[in-house]
């Protein structure tokens, strides 16, 4: 199920902007609150896994390794903290440093996972739609470039083949490869520029630049988009105030210390929990709805 993908790009963008902003906001020595980090990480993982199920399991292991590495490196190089666990050639390894490392690792990994989901959902045409609302012209250039990239790769291959077919291209040794490469590249440039001009002709022929462009898109802004947008913004505001007010402050150095739990902090936690699990909720809701409909039939 990919229910969340079908929301309006602006909605999706706002959601990710808020969740990632918070995630990174907490990525600093003062507000690195374990609970927040936990929520962020679990939310990120759930969102990613719900979307991709079992595909790309290997990558998870890679990031697990990265997590451990980040966690362990900190105590090795960073020796402040009071509770000493052990001493490696008269450098103290402290509990605080270890925990801090773990926490920051969690923070980084979660941000990475948020971005992984984001890159998957926010496909180029959605990004275009967003930009199209700010600057149609910039969006147009972006769109043109996105069309050119696969075209040029294809053409580069063709040129190499053609030159080889004439016996003009060889990649036996390094120098000849460089020579061949530059040759091909310069052909590509000529070709790209000349064809570019033809394209520009076809743009002018269809009246580009006569009046101010509008930007057409096949995305609509429906009720549920508004709902999600508003929800994410409100939650974001709540959390931000919570964070700035210092209600969830959490320090590792010199020794672990944190602001004691208050109504504000609890609300902040809940709000953040809701925010991070929003996509997961949407997906499951859709799932259930389908099951229900099936049972009706």
């Amino acid at each position, binding site marked *: 199920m990919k229910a969340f993908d079908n929301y309006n790009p602006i909605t999706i963008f706002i959601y990710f902007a808020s969740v990632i902003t918070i995630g990174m906001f907490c990525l600093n020595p003062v507000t690195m609150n374990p609970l927040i980090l936990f929520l962020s990480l679990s939310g990120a993982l759930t969102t990613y896994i719900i979307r991709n199920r079992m595909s790309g399991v290997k990558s998870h292991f890679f990031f697990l390794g990265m997590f451990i590495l980040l966690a362990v490196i900190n105590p090795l190089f960073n020796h402040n903290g009071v509770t000493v666990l052990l001493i490696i050639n008269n450098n103290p390894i402290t509990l605080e440093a270890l925990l801090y490392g773990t926490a920051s690792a969690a923070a980084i990994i979660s941000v990475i996972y948020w971005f992984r989901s984001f890159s998957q959902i926010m496909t*180029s*045409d959605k990004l275009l739609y967003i930009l199209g609302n700010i600057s*149609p012209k910039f969006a*147009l250039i972006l*769109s*043109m470039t*996105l*069309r050119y990239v*696969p*075209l040029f790769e*294809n*053409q580069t291959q*063709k*040129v190499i*083949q*053609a*030159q*080889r*077919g*004439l*016996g*003009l291209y*060889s990649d*036996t040794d390094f120098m000849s490869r460089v020579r061949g490469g530059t*040759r091909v590249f*310069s*052909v590509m440039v*000529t*070709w790209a520029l*000349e*064809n570019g001009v*033809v*394209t520009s*002709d*076809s*743009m*002018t*022929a*269809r*009246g*580009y*630049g*006569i*009046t*101010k*462009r*509008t*930007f*057409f*898109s*096949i995305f609509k802004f429906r009720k549920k988009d508004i709902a999600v947008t508003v929800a994410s913004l409100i939650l974001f505001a709540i959390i931000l105030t919570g964070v700035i007010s210092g209600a969830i402050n959490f320090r590792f150095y010199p020794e672990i210390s944190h602001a004691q739990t208050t109504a504000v902090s609890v609300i902040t936690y809940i709000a953040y929990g809701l925010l991070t699990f929003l996509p997961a909720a949407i997906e499951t809701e859709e799932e259930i709805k389908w099951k229900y409909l099936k049972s009706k039939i």
Partner: protein
Amino acid sequence: MEILKIENLTFSYPLCEEKAIESISFSVDRGDFVTVCGPTGCGKSTLMRLLKKELIPLGEMSGKVYYKGRDVQTLSEKETACSIGFVAQRPEEQIVTDKVWHELAFGLENMGMPQDVIRRRVSEMTCYFGIEDWFEKSVAELSGGQKQLLNLASVMVMQPDILILDEPTAQLDPIAASDFISTLSKLNRDLSLTVIITEHRLEEIIPVSNKLFAMESGKMLKYGETRETVKALRNNAVFMQGMPAAVRIFSSFDLSLPCPLTAREGREFIEKNFDNRVSELETPLSNTEKKDAVLEFSDVYFKYSKEMPDVLRGLDFKVYKGEIFCILGGNGSGKSTCLSVAAGLRRQYSGTVRVLGKKIKDYKKNELYRGCISLLPQDVQTVFLKNTVKEELEDVVSKDHTLPYDLSELNDRHPYDISGGQQQLLALAKVLSSAPQILLLDEPTKGLDAYAKKEIGVILQKLAQTGLTVVCVTHDVEFAAEWADRCAMFFRGEITSCGIPSEFFAGNNFYTTAVNRMTSNYYKNITTVSDAVKIMRLNMNGGAE
């Protein structure tokens, strides 16, 4: 009602003394379907561009173009952009954006139209051209035919009343081409859209066009109602070669009858004027003495990547020394791929390819290309490296080696500044210059006029007689029928039928020459005009006269 009027139009490109267009005057009525024909480099594309204000190339231009009685120069940008649509030769280059739906909307976006208007018009066009099922695809995934159709559609959303097309079908296979043309004539009938089109393959286009414009070296030769023009050109050798088969056959008998244009009229013409006692020419029995195979595919499988489907599926054929072997087949059937495998540019994952009896993978680096095998790619622009034609030729041509034809008048032009056909010839020159034993040509005749085609045919035949082997992929059945020793039909990655042209084409119903389609009811195995004429002469004396 007169919609377009041209008054002694003259144009010359910068740094070129001779004029590309010289004092041309003519006028087009609403709902006309005008076909512009003429030899390669005669200025068709240039003329087409001059008709559309936005596309006029840099250079000296004099004369006037009137649209609905008003000078085009005085019209508002918006008016000209909307009311005159333009589709050019290469489908690839005209596409601007990365998604089909965005491309369709592009023109309307430029006009600053509101969302809902755009949505309505786009959806309408999508239905009319039947492109719903690839509406949300990205253009990189489309086939050549689809791309060209997209170009047409994205021009039509602007609701023009004149449509100008410059060799729109040059890259398409015969079936796709005739589909495209019938779409055009449908538009012309439904919306009484005025169409002005340049073409080299007149077989399909003449029957649907009501006006014909013949030009030669930048000047207007004849313009008028199709039949009139055709009749007027009857004794002009250059143009006759480009004409539909019916006309060519007819014009080689001097009968005082109305000239047939379509295949149907051609049949009637044969029906009426010839009795068909002799139904077969005694074919010169194809020299059957076994020659040695120089190129040999045995059970070759190829795919571009693991997850993609096979492109070559157990391909299996032999090409013998000194023959011209033509491969025909639809867009995307794998012809180019086959050639690149034959040239050792791509490796099959199973099966073997032998060149001159030696396994292709046993050749050392580039040994294969030193006077052994040489490939003319489909996209000829990929072989140009230098800034002038002269340098291009010097780059490869050894001093003693002489070209079979002459390009010297183009010497100091940039390879991109010469006409499509001329580029084709230049590229061929580069390929020939390495004096290979096996010559692989990927659509060498696209964008060439009939005359230049004949030139190339003659050249190839000469080379073949000197023992060079030619493997030629082409969409041009007429060319294949005329010049090939053997033809092969390519379908979904394998060769489904193969044989000497007369029998090969006689076997097909659609994928065959117009002559064959026209004569098949009366005579057996007639595929070329010359054969048709020969056999009809035999049937004559008992006939009409």
